[in-house]
């Protein structure tokens, strides 16, 4: 019985093998193929999921020969797209670390094979974190439908929900953030009739009501202190307005904004006059890796929304003493964007403290709706700042996050269709050299076309986030919300 079974299996395998056509190209092109996603000459980590792709042309068959180090080869032929077997791919990458894969693509058109010039995929020997956490939400206006915060293992195509808004009908889930990519220390907000800020510290969940009499709103945009003892938040009075002209859609503006630092152990927000100035908009705080500086965006107050296109933010810094939770008395301007008629958002220092990445736009702070939004890199050692042209496109580049080892970054971009934000990952070395970014790989090439949601706030995590959504649900439904203490002003 077993013998027959083996014979049948071998026969079937041979049959499948026999189905693969021999590629005898009638035409050999000098150019590399235009593929989707564009993986031509990208740099990837050795643990990335298979880079499945298709050629952006019409064809009846596609063939790819993927050659790694030591003559290791994966050969795939299909009618629609190149889907690489996960195990073989993982092995090939592991054996090709620090080297490049050579991929030769051919397509069959009108019965004839056309071969393109081979392209490379550089396999970095620098590791990347376990995965990404992002929110999937339709790029809408005021109303929202189903959304959720999801995690994705970068080594496979596995995506799982951390929390979805279906758990608490009518709610909105947003602003996930991790302490140095640590999955055990996480912040996220659940807004709605019932909700609060979910703060997970060392795996323990607490639900907070963060509105105080002294602050203008709940805690909004978060950033963890590296010690895990504090989380900096902006408090914002946010409005949306809508454009009539074709080139723009939405403008998200702050009528007022301040910054507070939440002292987790003492359950108390703290701030100072410099961060709560009524004549200044302060937003998007982030701590330096040594925890002794607080970066933030700062703009002179304007009437909103009337002067929405006149507000411009600079990149500023204030000293912070984590031992006693006090601030320095002076604000330094690190990047004077107003001087060049621009505005800074999302300052994010690299965990090694060498660089600070931010988004630069013409005005305002909500860069996702700005086509001109580009990533910039500030060298904190030299003070030099440059546009990250290797990563930028003609469309929006907005939110970004560093890997825990500072050698990779993920950013959201609207370059594919101009509206639906997609996550791109790029390498960056000690000298600030940036590799060609690659789109987060998916199991099939139609994934992004069919997906009606944007990838929002992609963040690296060093391991799987272990959260029981039912615990969160019980806390919210059971009103087990802890009120944060009164604001302590320095």
């Amino acid at each position, binding site marked *: 019985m077993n013998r027959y079974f083996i014979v049948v299996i071998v026969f079937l395998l041979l049959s499948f093998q026999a189905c693969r056509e021999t590629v005898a190209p009638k035409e050999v092109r000098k150019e590399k193929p235009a593929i989707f996603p564009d993986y031509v000459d990208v740099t990837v980590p050795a643990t990335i999921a298979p880079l499945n792709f298709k050629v952006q042309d019409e064809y009846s068959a596609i063939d790819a020969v993927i050659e790694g180090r030591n003559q290791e080869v994966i050969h795939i032929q299909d009618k629609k797209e190149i889907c690489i077997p996960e195990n073989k791919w993982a092995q090939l990458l592991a054996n090709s670390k620090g080297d490049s894969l050579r991929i030769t693509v051919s397509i069959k058109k009108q019965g004839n094979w056309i071969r393109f010039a081979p392209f490379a995929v550089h396999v970095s020997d620098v590791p990347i974190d376990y995965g990404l956490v992002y929110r999937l939400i*339709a790029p*809408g*206006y*005021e*109303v*929202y*439908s*189903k959304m*959720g915060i999801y995690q994705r293992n970068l080594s496979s195509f596995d995506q799982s*929900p951390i*929390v*979805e808004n*279906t*758990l*608490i*009908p*009518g709610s909105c889930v947003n602003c996930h953030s991790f302490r140095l990519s640590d999955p055990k220390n996480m912040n996220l907000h659940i807004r709605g009739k019932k909700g609060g800020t979910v703060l997970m510290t060392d795996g323990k969940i607490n639900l907070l009501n963060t509105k105080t009499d002294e602050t203008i709103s709940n805690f909004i945009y978060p950033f963890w202190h590296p010690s895990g003892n504090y989380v900096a938040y902006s408090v914002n009075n946010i409005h949306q*307005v*809508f*454009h*009539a*002209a*074709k*080139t*723009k*859609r939405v*403008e998200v503006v702050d009528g007022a904004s301040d910054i507070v630092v939440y002292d987790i152990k003492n359950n108390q927000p703290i701030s100072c006059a410099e961060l709560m100035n009524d004549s200044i908009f302060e937003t998007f705080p982030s701590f330096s890796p040594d925890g002794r500086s607080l970066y933030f965006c700062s703009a002179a107050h304007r009437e909103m*929304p009337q002067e*929405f296109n006149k507000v411009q933010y600079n990149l500023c810094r204030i000293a912070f003493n984590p031992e006693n939770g006090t601030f320095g008395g002076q604000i330094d301007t690190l990047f004077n964007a107003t001087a060049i008629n621009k505005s800074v958002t999302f300052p994010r220092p690299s965990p090694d403290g060498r660089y600070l990445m931010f988004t630069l736009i013409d005005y305002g702070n909500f860069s996702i709706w700005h086509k001109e939004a580009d990533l910039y890199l500030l060298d904190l050692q030299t003070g030099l700042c440059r546009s990250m042209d290797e990563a930028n496109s003609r469309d929006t580049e907005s939110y970004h996050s560093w890997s825990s080892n500072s050698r990779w970054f993920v950013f959201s971009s609207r370059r*594919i*269709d*101009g*509206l*639906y934000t997609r996550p791109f990952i790029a390498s960056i070395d000690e000298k600030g050299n940036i590799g060609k970014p690659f789109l987060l790989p998916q199991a099939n090439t139609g994934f992004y*076309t*069919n997906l*009606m949601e944007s990838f929002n706030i992609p963040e690296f995590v060093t391991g799987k986030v272990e959260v029981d*959504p*039912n615990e969160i*649900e019980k806390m919210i439904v059971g009103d087990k919300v802890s009120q944060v203490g009164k604001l302590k002003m320095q």
Partner: protein
Amino acid sequence: MKIFSVNTLLSLGFGLIVFVFFAFFYRFHLNYQEQYQLFLFSADYFLKFMEKPGGFSDYVGNFFTQFSFYSWVGASIIAVSLTLLQRAVWLISRKSGANSLFYPITFIPSLLYWGLLCDENYLFGGVMVMLLVAVSVCIYTLIDSIPARISFVVLSIPVLYWLAGGAFLVLPIFAFVSEILKRQVKWTYLAIFALVVAILSVALPVISKTYFLQYPLRQVWIGANFFRFPVNLPFNVGVIALLIIFIPFTLRFLSGQVKTQKTTILLGLQWLVLLSGGVFFISSAADMAKEEVMAYDFNVRMRKWSRVIALADKKSPASPLSVTCLNLALAKEGLLAERMFSYYQNGVGGLLPDFTRDYTIPMITGEVYYHLGFVNTAQRYAFEAMEALPDYQKSVRAVMRLAETNLINGNYAVAEKYLSLLQKTFYYRAWANNALQTMKDENLIAQHPEWGWLRQCRSKEDFLFSEGEKDMMLGVLFRQNQENRLAYEYLMAYTLLNKDLKHFLQYFPLGESLNYRAIPKSYQEALIYVWVNTNNDPTKDIPYPVSNATKQRLQAFQRSAGATQPNGFSDSYWHYFYFRK
């Protein structure tokens, strides 16, 4: 040769009546349902539904609902489904020992579901749930072997739970009662059976929620989306589901009680109650006022402007949304300025209703903004309406509008994304293919009667949308394209409906570029009214070519001004000005 029994003919007759009702009297409800989903022929779409209990029923429900694009097809599907449900209930009843004398009673679940379907928020997936559980009960009744039928029930529970949701309970409850009545199974085994069912009933939803699904337990238990608002408990559906159990056993009991000599009276009485009750129930359940709004909306969606006006000529619209549709149709036919006061007007809310966070009003208002040339606003309203759908579905109508607006705005990549989705639909594939072809050629877009024109009408000058300053926005829009007659007439209508004659006079000369042959009726009425009330020099004549008939009519109106509602002037602006609050 007898092909159909009387009962079968009665079932067919019932189906026919259901068909006639939905195809001829309630057809726009079916069109309404169809627009609020985006059924895709793709594995991903199917698997998304299969992720949750009851999702299969929702999927099949959506599959059938897509055919309601043509309401007669949708009506046929509903008729067949409700007839099948009735036949299934009869089969179960017959196998349970019911006498055919009680055949009329078996129509009750179908009749009740027919009533539910008159509410636009009840979705067709619920009928699929009923059919699935009814068919599973049928199968149970057809199995003779005791171990086989008990095994069937136990094994069916998880499958049925995943396919139909919490309604799976109908099968084990029916089986339990049935086995008690049959007395073929020992009490011990029955107790074990009940225990297994109880454990499964609790465990399946709890396990699903704990490990797979992020929904409130109640929703995980109910499963299918019977109602568009999944947070609502579908009590009515629960009653119908219980009737599938209750009716067969009741009929079995009654069949044992009935005396043969009184059968005709009993049968006649049942039909009488069923027919009179049915007529009363369906006429109460049917909301013809909503049907009217949906008729207006569907014809606007299909750009059947003359049909919209014909509807209003037949019966003047009363609801604000119908008025919105009518005003748009009048404007598209070039009749707004001439005839708008011939119909009921409810103020500027009937011209451009304010934004609300729901899926109906923005969809209709978005049509007005679209045809005016406010392409970005139309896009926003379509997106908002789609996102507001409480059952998290996408809307085929909204996706079409998003494709159109992006195409007009030259955002071809994202337009292509929407069109590629529409290519996976049944009815919209050809439209999407045509749009994709058009998109490849700028000349074709420019020559397109709608897209090309709207491209010219769009605002080149950026400003922020302001709900409170619609007249200003209309003014800016018209200033940028002075051939945009719709924008001008909406601007003027806005001032008239607002009784803002100062701005009416200020904006009136802007219409010079539109080369009207004569000043439209409502404008003449407003002009002469202002003139009469502001001119102190009787030797001067009005500086606008207002007809003598209009002048004389105003005099007549003023003579009868003492009356609370002067007769013969209800189609005039003066009547609106004085008598509409």
